[in-house]
């Protein structure tokens, strides 16, 4: 059975992130218990950068969304900065950490969250 993106890319990244003091999701949850880290595909999701087509190979782009409660602006900003720092520190080798987007306030359900996206990329080759 060939390797999958789930087993070769998303699970290793989620496992690495599990060391962070936050709730980790490899998908977008309906409810977001903060602090939370959510791994979602970025756009473009797959880029084909290498030659040849005998083997499926691509560059995968992801957004790691960091969420903290938005109660006090100074405290929330400090919290999300600490969460971003801890997430970036555990991203494993082979993942290209690019930028962190500006934190924004997002309403999820009845609560406000302070949210920032970390953009990462990696390369995937399907193996037998």
């Amino acid at each position, binding site marked *: 059975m060939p390797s999958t993106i789930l087993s070769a890319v998303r699970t290793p990244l989620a496992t690495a992130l599990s060391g962070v003091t936050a709730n980790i999701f490899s998908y977008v949850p309906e409810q977001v218990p903060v602090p939370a880290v959510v791994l979602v595909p970025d756009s473009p999701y797959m880029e*084909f*950068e*290498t*030659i*040849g*087509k*005998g*083997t499926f*190979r691509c560059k995968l782009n992801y957004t790691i969304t960091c969420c903290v409660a938005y109660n006090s602006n100074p405290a929330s900003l400090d919290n999300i900065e600490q969460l971003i720092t801890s997430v970036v520190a555990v991203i494993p080798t082979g993942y*290209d*950490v*690019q*930028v962190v987007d500006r934190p924004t306030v997002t309403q999820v359900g009845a609560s406000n969250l302070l949210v920032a996206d970390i953009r990462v990329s990696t*390369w995937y*080759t399907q193996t037998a």
Partner: protein
Amino acid sequence: MATTVITGRDLTLTIATTAYDAQTTSVTLVNSPTIDVYQTLDGKAYKHTDDQWTLNVELLADWGAASSLFEAMWTAADTNPNTTLAVSLTAVTGAVFACNVLPVFPAIGGAAPGAQTDSWTLTVVGTPADTFS
């Protein structure tokens, strides 16, 4: 005749029997001809005197990986710098070019953020052989 487009995804590259497709983002086999120009009483005259082919490869670095291509090229350049490596470049099914290149030392390092990459300019010994079918 219908338009036929071939792309970089149609390319395959083998150096010293090892496939480099997995790391290669660009490959070109180009010729730099030497053409002498003479100004005669009847105008310009041209003489094609020489050809020097070059294999240009742009790659993602894979230091430390199992069967690392960068480490293989480093070893070849370090231990046998004057021994050519056999190259097979397939432009598309039915158009294959074979040549021999001299190894080069890969560059080490890169910029943050971003993948470590390198560009190799490999001198071709002789003239590539074509196989069209």
